[in-house]
């Protein structure tokens, strides 16, 4: 079996938002929609204060609540753990948006472009009308993962078949790979560190692990 997950080392993240930009570039998301973003949390009381950066996106859960509530089967969980949306089946009811505890999903009802109503050249080429009025979210760059099956490359090791955000991370905070493969980089990383998953108490089994200390 294969279970693709992401491990994010919060000790390393510097909040540069390069992953956010890389995601927008790779997936051509409209203005105001970020499939990947980085939370900036300031906590504590002076002088004992701290600032933490937390990259977030779809968690590609083991038990995705979005899939359970979807009335159309547009949202599906694949055998390799990726949660996908069929834009041609989705009716845009937003039930999945309500079900997701990670605010990972967006619905845009009209075409939006960076500079008003007229798309710039790159937006014209990459605009996908199928995404209007349906639910959308991070795919873990599913097209790259699928490419790996054709080329024999390994997601998480070979950049061509690894999510764009992971490739872009300047501090090496983000890792991707197969959790069921004990030799994968994420398996070895998680085995040697302490990590948590967000909102685990909700029983969703998120596929993103946040590393917060050494093992």
């Amino acid at each position, binding site marked *: 079996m294969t279970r693709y997950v992401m491990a994010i*080392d*919060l*000790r390393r993240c510097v909040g540069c938002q390069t992953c956010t930009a890389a995601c927008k570039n790779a997936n051509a998301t409209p203005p105001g929609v970020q499939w990947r*973003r980085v*939370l*900036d*949390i*300031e*906590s*504590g*009381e002076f002088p*004992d*204060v*701290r600032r*933490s950066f*937390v990259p*977030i996106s779809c968690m590609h859960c083991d038990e995705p*609540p979005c*899939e*359970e*509530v*979807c*009335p*159309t*089967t*547009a949202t599906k969980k694949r055998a390799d753990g990726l949660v996908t949306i069929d834009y041609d*089946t*989705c*009716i*845009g*009811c*937003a*039930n999945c*948006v*309500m*079900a*997701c*505890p*990670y*605010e990972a999903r967006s*619905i845009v*009802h009209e075409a939006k472009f960076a500079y008003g109503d007229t798309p710039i050249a790159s937006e014209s080429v990459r605009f996908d009308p199928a995404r*209007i*009025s*349906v639910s959308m979210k991070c795919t873990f760059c599913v097209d790259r993962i699928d490419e790996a099956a054709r080329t024999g490359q390994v997601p998480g090791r070979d950049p061509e078949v690894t999510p764009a955000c992971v490739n872009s991370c300047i501090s090496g905070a983000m890792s991707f790979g197969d959790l069921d493969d004990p030799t994968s980089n994420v398996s070895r990383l998680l085995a040697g560190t*302490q990590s*948590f998953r*967000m*909102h*685990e108490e*909700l029983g*969703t089994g998120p596929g993103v692990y*946040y*590393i*917060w*200390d*050494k093992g």
Partner: protein
Amino acid sequence: MKAKTLKAGNRIGPRQQHHWDWRAASNFIAGGAGGGLLAFAALASLAGTDVRALLLGGMALIGAGLTCVWFEIGKPWRALNVYRHLATSWMTREAAVAPLLFASGAAAVVTGHIAFVLLTGVCGAAFVYAQARILSADKGIPAWRHPRCRPMLVATGLAEGAALGAVASPFVITSAAGQLAVAAVTLGLLLIRVLLWRSYLAGLRADGAPEGSLRALAAVDGQFLKFGNLLPAALLLVAALGAPLAGLALIPAGLIAVGGGWLIKYTLVRRAAFTQGFALAHLPVRGRGPAGAAVKPGWGGAS
């Protein structure tokens, strides 16, 4: 270290959902009341009452709610795709009940056969239950997924149905005993509703919820208690005690009780619908310092 002061830089804490607007709320408002009315009509039919007008009213309310939802969804011409996930989706199940409900309701109105009336009542109750399950399955909204939300929603749907029955009873039920029974049933359902409402609020506070949800629900609590329940209860008592023109008291009592239910459902679906927000079980170790305490901004109550 106390993680007491938090600066919510960019959408860290819970925020109000904006994807479901008044059109989605209308489905829960009108559909819940309509389903409750159908269930009440089935009950009343057992006493020999001609409930065809009530059945038409219930179906009209459910139809209006579903129409509102149809205008809300992003791809209305694909709406029939809603029937594709009966295995786990309560939205599919709600949609699946609707055609059966309308078919049996139409048959009941045309033939007047008790079997169709009872089947329509069962479908109405199932519709109310499915709506409550839709909200409770939405894990992203803590105020909806709370285990005490579901029974409260079912209770208010049935209470609203009985209250609408009370409004209609001076016109469809001629006997004083019949009107007395309607007043008693409605009174009992209002009592159950208000108890479940208070239990729901207490549960939310005890278990913790987004501060915005607690604020929005607390803001309507007093109005709901006084005007949505106590006032109609007093009017229903007047009717039950058989005062002069008592039957007419059922009309304002029912209307006010229905309004109270609609107020809390609108509040729940729109104003109190705050997302989970984000939380960290541990703040990361930086340099040689220790890890920070857990953070969960924007939550109130016991959490």
